[in-house]
């Protein structure tokens, strides 16, 4: 039985079919990449899985349970964490408080939540920014906070929507390393949307490609870069040649 099974998901925004009969599955412990040009339907697919959108047809099965149409807070409680491509830059809460809210998903006591949040910030090496507000931080840090608060909910499947966009190569390197660590040490299955090709190819064990709402390819990174359809739709000949 697959860990996450997406079966024939379709999402139609009044004529614009953002996801067209998409099926795939993810096994426990994998790191799977989801790529495709802008507007291909990647974020929509995430939203259909975790419940921000109700798919028009199809099913999502997570650990043997049908979670289709569940609300985001319920899919989170079921063990799916996610980050947002566009993170709202808020002023109301500090970094520590943000992560504590994530921790409150599993604990009721404030001290417990605080300890857990501090431990996580330490694990990520960002405890020094704990008293800052999101609007006071550079994008790379905001992303880490988004990651930290999602992790605080104890997900077994973490879905990251373009966490590396806007980051410099060094920061990307850090995030890639971090993904590997949480995957191997915390045993968290990762499903990542990324448009930075180098990064997806480096970190993913398997890649799924969307284009105009259709799944056009799925396979090992090495095969994906050579796939005719993918090259046509997305990568361009140049990338394939240079690798």
């Amino acid at each position: 039985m697959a860990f996450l099974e997406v079966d024939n998901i379709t999402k139609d925004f009044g004529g614009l079919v953002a996801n067209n009969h998409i099926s795939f599955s993810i096994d426990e412990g994998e790191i799977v990449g989801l790529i495709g040009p802008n507007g291909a339907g990647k974020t929509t697919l995430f939203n259909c899985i975790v419940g921000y959108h109700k798919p028009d047809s199809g099913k999502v099965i997570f650990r043997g349970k049908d979670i289709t149409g569940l609300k985001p807070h319920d899919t989170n409680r079921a063990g799916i964490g996610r980050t947002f491509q566009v993170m709202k830059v808020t002023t109301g809460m500090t970094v520590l408080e943000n992560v504590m809210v994530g921790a409150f998903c599993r604990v009721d006591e404030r001290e417990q939540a605080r300890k857990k949040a501090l431990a996580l910030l330490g694990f990520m090496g960002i405890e020094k920014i704990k008293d800052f507000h999101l609007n006071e931080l550079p994008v790379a840090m905001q992303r880490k906070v988004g990651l930290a608060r999602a992790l605080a909910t104890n997900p077994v499947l973490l879905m990251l929507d373009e966490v590396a966009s806007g980051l410099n190569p060094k920061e990307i390197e850090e995030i890639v390393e971090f993904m590997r660590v949480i995957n191997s040490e915390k045993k968290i299955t990762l499903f990542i949307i990324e448009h930075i090709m180098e990064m997806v190819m480096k970190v993913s064990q398997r890649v799924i490609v969307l284009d105009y709402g259709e799944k056009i390819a799925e396979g090992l990174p090495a095969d994906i870069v050579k796939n005719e359809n993918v090259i046509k739709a997305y990568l361009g000949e140049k990338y394939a040649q240079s690798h």
Partner: protein
Amino acid sequence: MEAIKDALNFSDFSRAERISLIIFSLFLLIFPLLGAGSFTKTVMIQFLLFSLFGMGWNTIGGYGGQVELGKAQYVGIGAYTVALMMVWWKIPFWFSMPVGVLIALGYSFIIGYPLFRLKGHYFAIATICTSLVLKDIFDNWTLVGAAKGIELPIHEHPDFVYMQFKSDTYYYYFIMVLFYIGLFYMNWFRKSKLGYQLRMIKDDEDAAESLGIDIRWCKIKAYSIASAFVAVGGGFMAVYNLYIDPTSVMELSLSIKIALMAMLGGAASLWGPIIGAAFLVPLDRFLGSWLGGYKGLIGVDFMIYAALIMVVSAYQPRGIWGIIEQLRKRGS
């Protein structure tokens, strides 16, 4: 146990704030001994009452960030429960007041459930409408006195069972105790799981949902807590005024005043509702007695409030408390 510790613990506030709280508390304690006239005493009682209302509103309106403009219906529920149970069955205040709170809680869940399907302006308008409907029902319901209202039987001697006193001093200390219960409760609330979750909802609803927060359920809980708070105040109004009618305990203007005071003082801060009430209650009284004589000027007080809230929110959306914090940051 933890909760009580949290409620009594103000250590995360600055020294200046804690000292101010102590001085303010001492003042409240000895105020009746200062020989103030009955007008001033009335103003102080109103100040404490509206602080209590504002603190309650602050749960959903401040921490939760929802523009809630229908609290008067729960003031009414609290007031009418106490008054009717006393008039009909001679039931003591200490029994009828909790019953009023329970009815307010029950009613708030029933109203809150559909209400929190709505967002933004639609929500704000719907809160006004639900309140208007209840007032209309009471205005026409002869069993509960309709628009004429109900009078409570007057007890000559101080009566702690029915909480009826001739002297305002008793009422003053009574509402002061309620005020502190409210303050301690809110001091706990702001540090509670629900308090954190509400602030997240206010900041970013999508993110809140992704962190396992059932937004609608959290809002309903906060709304019900707010309703219970104001129902307590409503019960107090019944025994304090000894006369209630739909206009005095259920009118839209009361709902707006409650929200306005908390917003003006500083929504989502512990001190905000108190500061707001300290400004607006005396102003309200003053304008009331000043404008009361001029028939054509009814409503002018609300224009003044509206202007106030516009000026404050244009300068600092977090109200007077926000301005104070800003100045403090600049000073340090």
